[in-house]
């Protein structure tokens, strides 16, 4: 067994004690080696980097993390509150390590596989090899490179051609241990005409300070449909730096619902690449933060082909001395004619110290397209507040109700009813806490 050594002292400290996963699979070893090369070439980003200019991650570098040690055994009762009842299938990871005894992946129809990536790499190499670590670029992204270097296991979902995964799949990443770093990885492949709903869920227990560095790749085949709900509810002290790359073939449909509630500092990059013509994309985001939390969402809608449609709505609700960042880029490449792409960013500031940076970015290189963007930052509407108070609602109650309504627009569109209900309760509790 060889230990990974990185040149950058902080990254090296993250990797200290981390053993280079050994698999007999040469293509995978090669990709990990390439990633390590990038890890060594890159450095920890600072606010001097354009892509990180609003997001100071120096607090991360002040904590020494080590790889998660022997996983504490969790009982089903420990995670019951986090389970989504509609998800008959689930994979549970504890501190980044697959927990088969908490997972349920049986009873699926033929042509649908939900299971550990480590196991599937051996049995389904032909399906995995063209995609794993191919879509989430680690060329310029040190954290994606780091995740790929440490790629050992993760979640694997495969839906064969024209098959449908009957119920949502929950990928639950539970973190319980302080001062550990974990590298969750997901690969989702919906072949042509396939359908699935995925819930990627990060949950922290207690007040542990840990680091989750996650990478997800979603492949949506021709005419396939993937609904992807991503909920980040890490502990208030945690660090969460993640990226998701979705690649869409002709006429694919991809709906992403991203809800960010937790972590001291979080960064999420969502890159959607339109590789085929005529795709339909919905991108919803909600960040609800307070205290000294920082939540940064960077999205890229890359219309590389013609006739793509994308509707994006991103909302931030910031209380306390929280800081939200939203950078939404729409790229329309030459030849991507008849693109119809719109982006809305709306932010609600609940206190004087709350801070938000919103940066819409449109780069359009085709001439027959429809692109629109709008950004609005504001406070609760005084007329609405007065109307509610004139009916007897207290100031606090009125504020909470309006804040909740602002969030509900995003939450209500999540295609999993129990999760909608659960998140609505969380938002109510959280808005009561921040105001």
């Amino acid at each position, binding site marked *: 067994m060889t230990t990974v050594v990185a040149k950058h002292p902080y990254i090296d400290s993250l990797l200290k004690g981390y053993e280079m996963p050994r698999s007999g699979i040469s293509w995978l070893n090669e990709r990990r080696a390439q990633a390590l090369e990038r890890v060594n070439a890159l450095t920890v980003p600072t606010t001097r980097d354009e892509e990180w200019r609003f997001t100071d991650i120096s607090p991360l570098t002040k904590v020494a993390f080590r790889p998660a040690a022997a996983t504490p055994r969790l009982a089903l009762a420990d995670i019951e509150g986090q389970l989504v009842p509609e998800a008959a299938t689930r994979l549970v990871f504890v501190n980044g390590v697959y927990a088969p005894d908490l997972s349920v992946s049986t009873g699926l129809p033929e042509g649908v596989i939900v299971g550990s990536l480590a196991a599937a790499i051996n049995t389904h190499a032909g399906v995995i090899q063209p995609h794993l670590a191919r879509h989430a670029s680690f060329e310029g992204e040190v954290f994606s490179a780091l995740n790929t270097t440490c790629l050992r296991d993760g979640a694997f979902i495969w839906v064969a051609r024209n098959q449908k995964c009957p119920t949502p799949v929950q990928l639950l990443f539970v973190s319980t241990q302080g001062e550990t770093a974990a590298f969750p990885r997901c690969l989702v492949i919906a072949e042509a005409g396939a359908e699935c709903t995925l819930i990627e869920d990060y949950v922290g227990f207690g007040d542990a300070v840990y680091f989750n560095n996650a990478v997800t790749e979603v492949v949506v085949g021709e005419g396939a449909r993937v609904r992807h709900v991503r909920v980040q509810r890490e502990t208030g002290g945690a660090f969460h730096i993640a990226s998701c790359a979705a690649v869409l073939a002709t006429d694919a449909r991809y709906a992403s619902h991203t809800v960010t509630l937790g972590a001291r500092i979080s960064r999420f990059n969502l890159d959607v690449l339109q590789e085929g013509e005529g795709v339909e994309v919905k991108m919803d985001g909600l960040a609800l933060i307070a205290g000294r939390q920082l939540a940064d969402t960077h999205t890229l809608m890359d219309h590389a082909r013609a006739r793509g449609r994308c509707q994006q709505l991103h909302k931030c609700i910031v209380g306390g001395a929280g800081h939200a960042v939203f950078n939404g880029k729409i790229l329309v490449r030459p030849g991507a004619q008849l693109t119809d792409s719109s982006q809305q960013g709306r932010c609600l500031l609940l206190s004087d110290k709350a801070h938000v940076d919103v940066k819409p970015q449109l780069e359009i290189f085709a001439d027959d397209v429809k692109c629109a963007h709008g950004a609005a930052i504001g406070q609760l*509407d*005084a*007329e*609405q507040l*007065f*109307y*509610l*108070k*004139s*009916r*007897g*609602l*207290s*100031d606090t*109650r*009125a504020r909470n*109700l*309006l804040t*909740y*309504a*602002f969030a*509900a*627009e995003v939450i209500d569109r999540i295609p999993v009813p129990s999760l909608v209900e659960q998140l609505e309760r969380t938002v109510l509790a959280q808005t009561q806490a921040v105001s």
Partner: protein
Amino acid sequence: MIRKDARVLLEVKGLHAKVGGTGIVKGLDLTVRAGEVHAIMGPNGSGKSTFAKALAGHPAYQVTAGTVTFEGKNLFEMAPEQRARAGLFLGFQYPVEIPGVSNSAFLRLAYNTMQAARGRDELDPLEFDDFAREKMKLLEMDPAFLDRSVNEGFSGGEKKRNEILQMALLEPRLAILDETDSGLDIDALRVVANGVNRLVTPDNAVVLVTHYQRMLNYIVPDYVHVMGGGRIIRTGGKELALELETRGYDRVKAA
């Protein structure tokens, strides 16, 4: 219904109020007793709506002088929500749209807040739904309005019905209805007016703020007050409204 021995609900003395630094109400006096229906009329800019909003506690309307007691208590020591809980209701001229909040949730929250303030039992969503549907019949409202966001996409008439529905649910001691007739066609006006009439009891009172006489054909006032220059310049019975209609505000003011 005028009863000289009836309890005084509202006592306004020498009220001055301004909005955006401009004085609009300048020395208004008004006494409202239980069981009475008052109409406050006057041309645009005479201060009718400012008076209504100042009573409800709208933050943009600043009271600069005068006193208002409501059921014996100093109204201006109470926050807007406390005024509401004490039984003061403002029917808005322009009811506010609140996307994302269902009308049923809003109405239930308001109703239960009021019930709690009165030491009465709250209703759970199912019980409330039945209760609200019953009240909606009074206003010939489609129960589908419960499931929509508060006032969002409602027509002018639907918004006004929703206001009176709130009045029916919250059972205020004193309802100030600000231009409730504006934007209503004749059928809607009749429905809304009938609703109001059925809510008036010997224990409560209604102040109608209106520009036109037409609503007073349906809700017959005990008193008609004419405002001009931020004060009540004339008070009379229901016949005064007819006089205004035929002679116009200018002539009446001059009289």
